């Protein structure tokens, strides 16, 4: 029996503000435990939270980038539950008036066409502290450095129909967010966390099946794997004549399975009520419009502009747009040099490869747009061969030297001297009499082989165009220089 998979995602995004959402403690990671706390984020009696203006700005930016409506007026609410990762026994969150509502994100859908994923809401809340469970001593150790980190929870409608679509949604979401520079978006570090609501139903069923909520995935791949596992599990349950139980299930990366969390029913009765310590927030239309003006060009728009302005392919534009700063680097190069396609080939080819090997980005490297354009020009002028230019790039990245200096130092200047080239060309003919004979019998394609041999002899330094000319000339003249 065929089932349809229905998925909704909840993404918790840590906002990269200087300070926490309701107090002035630094929003920093990797510090000693409990060194970034104060009476507010420790929930001490008498302390009062004050909303961080930057957290609001980042939430608005994100909401607008996701085509959300901005709520002109919103409040915070208390979500009550007892667990030692919260100091106050409640989390300040938003219940019925989220800062952003009804947005959408366009992803590549399963059929290949663009697909609109509706976003139900995005709301602000504070992150909880971190607990380390000590089984041997039957206790938990609580570190509240993270407590109060601003979170934006972005919730989709159940519009995703496969684990692949869920993966694409996360990929496009992260790409969009990286343009806004509002979060690190690093799942391994926990700055982006994703829970998945998964159910299956017979195709054409209007009613959704019973869903389970999957947690504890720490990469996009894990989200995909957990959904795949869960869909198969639910299929087996239904085909076995049983019912799927609504519950939270944890993904176990090592076992590659989901496990029921078996939480108590009452754990989900949060008794929300308006937060009395925080007054209302209003966001006037002018502020929203002003914020909209500050939004950078987003990936989709950039891709379209690149293909139109620079005449590069959709694929090339897509690769460039994967990193906002690389895309910027490309445009700086294109302002200096007219052949955008050549720049693009270098950036998406050898530059990207070398950057990946060094585990850095173009922006973080010493490479300047002028350097790359210089290198391309040197090839064009015949001062260095295409082949050796790749090595020049490597040294440029490692040493920060300019390409002229490297070419001179390494003695990689392309040999364009006619006398020297003639020697190399004649040697290639003399070394390969059989090939020469073939060519004279009409197999002209074998000329390429001779050019290759000559290039190899020269250590890649010969100007290939000139070598080819000389070889052709000498073939007409005869390998020994005498005419046929």
């Amino acid at each position: 029996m065929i089932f349809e998979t229905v998925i909704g995602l909840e993404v918790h995004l840590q906002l990269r503000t200087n300070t926490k959402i309701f107090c002035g403690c630094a929003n920093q990671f990797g510090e000693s435990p409990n060194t970034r706390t104060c009476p507010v984020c420790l929930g001490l009696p008498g302390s009062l939270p004050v909303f961080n203006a930057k957290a609001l700005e980042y939430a608005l930016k994100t909401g607008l980038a996701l085509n959300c409506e901005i709520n002109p007026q919103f409040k915070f609410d208390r979500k009550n539950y007892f667990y030692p990762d919260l100091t106050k026994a409640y989390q300040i969150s938003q219940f019925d008036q989220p800062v952003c509502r009804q947005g959408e994100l366009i992803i590549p859908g399963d059929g290949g066409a663009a697909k609109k994923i509706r976003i139900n809401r995005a709301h602000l809340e504070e992150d909880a502290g971190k607990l380390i469970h000590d089984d041997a001593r039957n206790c938990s150790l609580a570190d509240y450095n993270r407590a109060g980190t601003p979170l934006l929870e972005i919730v989709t409608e159940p519009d995703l129909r496969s684990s692949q679509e869920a993966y694409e949604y996360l990929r496009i979401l992260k790409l969009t967010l990286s343009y806004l520079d509002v979060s690190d978006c690093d799942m391994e570090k926990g700055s982006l966390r994703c829970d998945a609501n998964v159910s299956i139903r017979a195709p054409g069923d209007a009613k959704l099946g019973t869903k389970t909520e999957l947690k504890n995935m720490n990469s996009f791949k894990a989200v995909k794997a957990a959904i795949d596992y869960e869909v198969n599990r639910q299929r087996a349950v239904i085909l076995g004549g049983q019912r799927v139980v609504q519950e939270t299930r944890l993904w176990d990366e090592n076992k590659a399975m989901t496990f029921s969390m078996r939480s108590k029913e009452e754990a989900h009765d949060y008794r929300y009520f308006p937060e009395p310590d925080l007054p209302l927030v209003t966001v006037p239309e002018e502020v929203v419009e002003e914020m909209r003006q500050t939004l950078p060009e987003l990936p989709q728009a950039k891709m379209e502009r690149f293909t139109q302005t620079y005449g590069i392919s959709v694929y090339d534009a897509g690769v460039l747009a994967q990193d906002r700063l690389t895309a910027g680097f490309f445009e700086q190069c294109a302002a200096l040099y007219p052949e955008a396609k050549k720049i693009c080939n270098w950036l998406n080819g050898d530059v990207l490869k070398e950057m990946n090997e060094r585990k850095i980005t173009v922006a973080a490297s010493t490479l300047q747009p002028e350097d790359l354009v210089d290198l391309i020009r040197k090839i064009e002028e015949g001062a260095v061969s295409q082949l050796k230019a790749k090595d020049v790039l490597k040294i440029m990245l490692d040493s920060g030297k300019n390409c002229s200096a490297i070419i001179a130092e390494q003695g990689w200047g392309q040999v364009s001297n006619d006398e020297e080239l003639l020697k190399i060309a004649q040697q290639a003919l003399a070394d390969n009499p059989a090939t020469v004979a073939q060519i004279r019998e009409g197999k002209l394609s074998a000329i390429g082989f001779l050019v290759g041999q000559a290039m190899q002899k020269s250590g890649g330094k010969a100007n290939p165009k000139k070598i080819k000319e000389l070889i052709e000339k000498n073939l007409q003249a005869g390998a020994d220089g005498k005419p046929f």
Partner: protein
Amino acid sequence: MITDQDVRYVAALSRIHLREEEVDRLRKNLEDILRYIEKLNQLDVSAVEPTNHVLPLKNVLRPDDARPSLTQEEALSIAVEKSQGAFKVPKVIE
């Protein structure tokens, strides 16, 4: 109608341990409160702005500037038990 079961449930959510004889008294209290709310619900408030906050305040925001935090010693001075720079608490499995 509030049942004894409701009282025990709400108490459990709030981690309040009730003695058996308290359940009946609290059930009656809660019923009184709900009856009062019921009365309030009969008023026509359609023309009244909801009170979102007791003070007429709006948009109280602060700039994103860091301020010194407590030291680890200061933070942990209120801990009942501590270990390795952390608050040591009984193990709770959610």
